[in-house]
């Protein structure tokens, strides 16, 4: 992987992990929905880099044990 793309990938991964952690810290529907949308957009940016792991972000959250 190109170094700059690798760096970008790592940054996106970190951002997603923070969002996943935030998801476990709230039950407020409005906030949960916004966080899921944010994760979707980050997954979408990985799609644009051809670096996504699964076809949908929720499949990755499931794998990571994030409860919805």
């Amino acid at each position, binding site marked *: 992987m190109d170094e700059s793309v690798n760096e970008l990938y790592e940054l996106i991964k970190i951002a997603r992990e923070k969002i996943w952690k935030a998801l476990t810290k709230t039950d407020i529907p409005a906030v949960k929905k916004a966080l899921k949308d944010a994760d979707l957009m980050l997954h979408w940016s990985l799609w*644009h880099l051809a670096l996504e792991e699964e076809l949908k972000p929720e499949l990755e959250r499931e794998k990571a044990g994030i409860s919805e």
Partner: protein
Amino acid sequence: MRFWNPIWETMPRKKLDEIHLKRIKKLIRYAYTHTQLYRRKFRECGLTPDDINTMDDFVKKVPFTTKEDLTYSQSPEQMFAVDALAEKSDTIIHYFQTSGTTGLPLKIPFSHYDTIKYGEDWVYGFWAVGIRPRFRFYFAFSWGMYAGFWSCYWGVRRLGCTAISGGGVGTEDRIKQLQSLKPDVLVATPTYAVYIAEMCRKMGVDPKSFGLKFFYGAGEPGPTAIPKLREELESYYGVKAYELYGVAEVGAIAPACPLQLGTHLNESNYHCIVIDPETGELLSEGERGENVVTSFAQLSQPVIKYRTKDIVEWHYSDACECGRTWVLYKGSVLARSDYVVKVRGVNIYQTAIENIIRSIPGASPYIEMHLRLDERKLDDMLIKVEADQSLPSEMYSDLENKIAEAIRGVIGVRLAVEVLPPNSLPRYELKAKKIFDHRPKERRMLLER
């Protein structure tokens, strides 16, 4: 930046194929796990997802999906086809359906992510031709259940452009809106754009006064498929005219090549093979056949090796003169496989016929093609053409002859032609119905999209 996403649009073929295979394997596992449809189809073939490891496995072993598969479990009591749905129905945020002139309309569900990807498909096309954020788009569309222009709207928002709705009003009011709002891009079916120009003439309005820069169409063969139609639209409106090739239940799969050579399959979201529609055999590059598409973007109602019934001539473009490495459909969609008829040994393609007729003085753009059987019970075609307003009726028979001869000169067979007075044929706001099949039921294949 020439490309919306150069990583995908200029990706070498070898890497594209590697990623396609990875995604195909994931998609098959996903569809098998989440839909009864694909579990049933795979079990009928004695397959599981573990059996698909190479592209050869995919091409040779995985069964095709048809429209009938998707409608199989539809019923009036249920919103969606239960066995084809991969999402829980409460995560579906948009519902469409095809118009369905025969039999059931096809119900099409989309999740939030599906709609994002569907919209993004259009953005590749917009960016390629020079459309940028803050351009203003006018939608000459009534916002019914037709997926095409809704997805265009999602793309317009995604790019950061302004959407102006032409919904809820008739053509005359749309013309007045175009005059006063002066958008940059007109979105309509190509036939309706021709009709708007016709109405402008009746109202004494010059369509060039709208100040449009682009026409971007979809829904039927347009400026890419029919060069004469492109010339007309560009001449009427003073624009560059393009089209996107989409399949409602799959996605906006192929935006226009900016050099107007055809449409390029968006390989960030789709994979295709092209087959002989009669035998199902894989065709080589440059051959004409039925487009079979797999979508990585439509995950609510997955489509794997979906038979679109669209006839295309496909080329690898390493790279197209436009710089893209994506598969090129030269001339975009040439015909529907159901409606390619062989008349005296010659395949007749709808777009070829339209292109010929449009170049003949005295013929209007309003055309119908009627499939029928001749006295020997072989496929035949009668073409009905409206005369231009300026043509005296005593010249109709001369025009019939000119059209028949022009067709014979290009495609090698003489077809029956009937010239009708102006305004004899219906006008359409969405896709025009141009093909009518009068052959016995057993000779016809059901078509609807």
